[in-house]
């Protein structure tokens, strides 16, 4: 499903060059639930960004579901991402002027993979699946952190992507809510979706299939 070959990423900063990823090789199988664990600044977000095509490697290649994504243009990448990747952020990143259901419909409007009339129905179903269907017509600002993250997960599933990436999805949640969210990801993986979670919390072993540790841009165990 995911294949990274000798991937390196170096940033130019006012303080000089900074290597965020160093010669990474990684293979993730379809339907696998992988946790990328590391401290803040270890490179786990950069790794996820590479897989999502949000960032490009300085060296090496990234292939996801058979597509060499590092070779795609920005526009093609966006379209590809809309159909193939669901992304969940630490700070939820719901658009503040759209209601919960509209936030879920947004990727469908971009990708146009689902007929216009069916989009709302599907969005409500997804909200139902993550347990916040009653909040469908509310604006994000009126929802709790946990509810917002559930909406964000529903949004990530909008186009039924084969891959869901989540960057610190529980970082801003209390422990009870965090457990519920992780269970949701487990449920997705059980359904065949490949899930990769970046987190600095080590206690996700109970839900994931495989743990990858990252430190100073290098993988320790995979």
């Amino acid at each position, binding site marked *: 499903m995911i294949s990274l070959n000798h991937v390196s990423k170096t940033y130019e900063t006012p303080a000089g060059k900074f290597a965020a990823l160093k010669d990474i090789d990684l293979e993730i199988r379809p339907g696998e639930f992988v946790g990328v664990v590391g401290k803040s600044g270890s490179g786990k977000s950069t790794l996820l*960004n590479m897989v999502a095509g949000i960032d490009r490697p300085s060296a090496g290649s990234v292939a996801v579901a058979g597509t060499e994504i590092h070779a795609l243009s920005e526009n093609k990448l*966006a379209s590809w991402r809309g159909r193939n990747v669901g992304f969940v*952020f630490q700070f939820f990143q719901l658009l503040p002027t759209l209601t919960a259901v509209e936030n879920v419909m947004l990727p469908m409007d971009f990708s146009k993979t689902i007929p216009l009339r069916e989009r709302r129905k599907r969005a409500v179903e997804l909200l139902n699946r993550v347990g916040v269907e009653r909040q469908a017509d509310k604006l994000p600002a009126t929802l709790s952190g946990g509810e917002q993250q559930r909406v964000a997960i529903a949004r990530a599933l909008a186009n039924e992507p084969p891959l869901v990436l989540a960057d610190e999805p529980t970082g801003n949640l209390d422990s009870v809510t965090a457990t519920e969210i992780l269970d949701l990801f487990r449920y997705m993986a059980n359904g065949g979706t490949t899930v990769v979670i970046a987190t600095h919390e080590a206690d996700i072993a109970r839900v994931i299939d495989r743990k990858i540790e990252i430190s100073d841009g290098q993988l320790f165990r995979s």
Partner: protein
Amino acid sequence: MTTLWRKAIRDFWQERARTVLVVLAIALGISAFAAVVSSYAILTRELDRGYLVTNPASAVLRVDSIDKDLVKAILQNPAVSDAEPRRTIGGQIKAGPVQWRNLVLFVVEDYGNIRVSKLMPESGAWPPATGEILVERDAFQVARVNIGDAVTVKTANGVETPLVISGSVHDVGQAQARMENIVYGYINLATLVQLGEEPRLDQLNILVAQNRFDEDHIKRVASDVEQLIKSKGHEVRRVEIPQPGKHPHSDLMGVLLLAMSSFGLFVLMLSGILVINLLTAMMASQVRQIGVMKAVGGTHRQIARIYFTQALFLGIAAVIVSIPLGILGSRALCRYMAIFLNFDINSFAVPIWVYLLVALIGVVAPLIAAAYPVWRGTRTPVRVALSDFGLSQANFSTGAVDRAIAQIGGTFRLIAFAIRNSFRRRARLVLTLLTLAAGGLFFLSALNVRSSMINTLDRMFAARKFDLSVSFANPYEFEKIQKAVSKTAGVKRAEGWFTGEGSHGDRRFGVVALPPDTQLLDFDIIEGRKLTPQDTDAIVINNALAGRDPKMRVGETVTLRIGAEEKTWRVVGIAREAFAPSPTGYIPLTGMVNSVRLALDDTDEDSIGALKTELDRNLEAEGIRARGSSTKSESRFGFDQHMVMIYVFLIVTSVIVGSVGGLGLMTTMSLNVLERRREMGVMRALGATPRIVWLMIVAEGVVIGLLSWTIAALLAWPISKAIGDFLVRMMFRSGLDFTFEPLGLVIWLLVSIGLSAVASFLPAWRASRITVREALAYE
């Protein structure tokens, strides 16, 4: 409706205040533009339409006398479609104790059958009965009379005749009476006889049958008619060919409209800058959302479409606001211009092309303004967009300029902070300064142009050392006039002059013969020299004649026809005269005079009035008949009226541009506050009181205001000189004696500080009310 449309609409609603500001900014520019374009369409249509409706004469021939047979003979020419005789005669008019005013009387044979240069009856009687006079509507205030008043009228023969003002007419083709300080009166032939004049007509208005707007054709036909009149034993004194189909003031109006159009475009451009500023900030605040949309599959085009849709909404809203505002503005402008130029507007209908143009510009301008911010915003890489936290430290302290600015302020931390903050968003600062400084420049220019005009007029009238000028119906020996003058108390000095007409080739110009050592006219010689008592064949020409006739240069000898005599003259000097002087040559006086220039002891209106009455009596005792008179203040009045127009225009423009600038500063400050909310939270957490936060933001606004004032002050001299020269050159074909008005700098400094404090007050007040928790939670 897709979520993309919903987002576009709801973002607007969420940022209602900012949206209103943007709409106002665009609407202000579009309204000014719409007002000017509509006025242009209405005025050009109405002025020429109103003029053409009167069937203006193609040519006017001044003849010794015209009878019916002569008119009949002229009408035999198929190139002439109509010919109508009239008489124009100079005189004076007064009502009650009011002083004599200069009068131009038009004598019409048959008021029921005016076919050429028609008069429009306004109110009262029509046609005037014998013993009655109609007055041009604009001349009532010059004569200070009303319909029904009894007036006394005298022509050059000196016979004072009581007449009754029975009505008012509108004579579209005449220059405004107020500007010329002349009363236009209309009488019949029988009344002319009552005035002691012969009942003859001496002016022939002809209308060509074809090619009415072809000046060459009109010249040819007029020449044929002139030959015919001469062949019948008559004398043709002058042939005048007005610009075909054009109101005499259409050029003046064209200049004013051109100046206004330039201004309209300028305001449009300024509001465009404001829109760029706002949309750039709007896009900056959307960067994270753009990142999210890209992360969930949005392409550049899809995302750009959202923001272009917003720009389109802004444009549509602005057009909806601006069209009625623009129409209202154009009506006010048209009414003002119509009063100023003395013509009627029958219809304020705005042509459809104006609506389309305004709508097009209103919609397209924000799209163009949005292009760069949207392009830049949507091109932000997803990773960068997602990690955007608004204003970061990287915005400041990385460059040499920042480090230099960081040194400013010393121990005055508040000022230092205000200065540094104002430089954080440099592109925004530049655009804000541009709009504010433009307002300042217009304001300073308005004051400088005004004081330059006053200075130029002061200089021009200071050169004229006489306070009263009296013209006579016939030439007299100066000694005879001197006798009358010497019996009149209050005259310091008197000089007899002869004013007439000369020609060089087929070009006519005014000729003034005056004592070569005149003490009553101080020539402003720009080349060559003045006249001297030894001169016999020397001529000094004014800049208008020198400009029109390049052969007349200093040192050249030219053959001129002055009166009936053709003689060779040496051009010895060129004198500068301001504000559209008529081409004139000055020669040494050798014979009789037809006017007297008087320097007086007392120059107030009452003293001059009393002196004129006494002088008239003394002149009559000597058998001299005065035809007209004018005082220095009357001559100046006309100039001042023209100046007021330019001055009002500049002040109005500076107020509008200043408003755009103020609006710009207000948006800049509110954006700065919005972006620095978290910083303010930190400061509040560190102990800053709301008052301190408020003061800091107002100080930042004032710093920007002071910077804009500095720019305006530095540029004011060259720019206002250029604007003044441009306007005066276009209107009067002459330059200005430029003078800088230092008071303007002080006034604009106070306005800048006041405007910037007011513009930043609201954002500062809002910022000071945010709680620490809200500010720290702001992303």
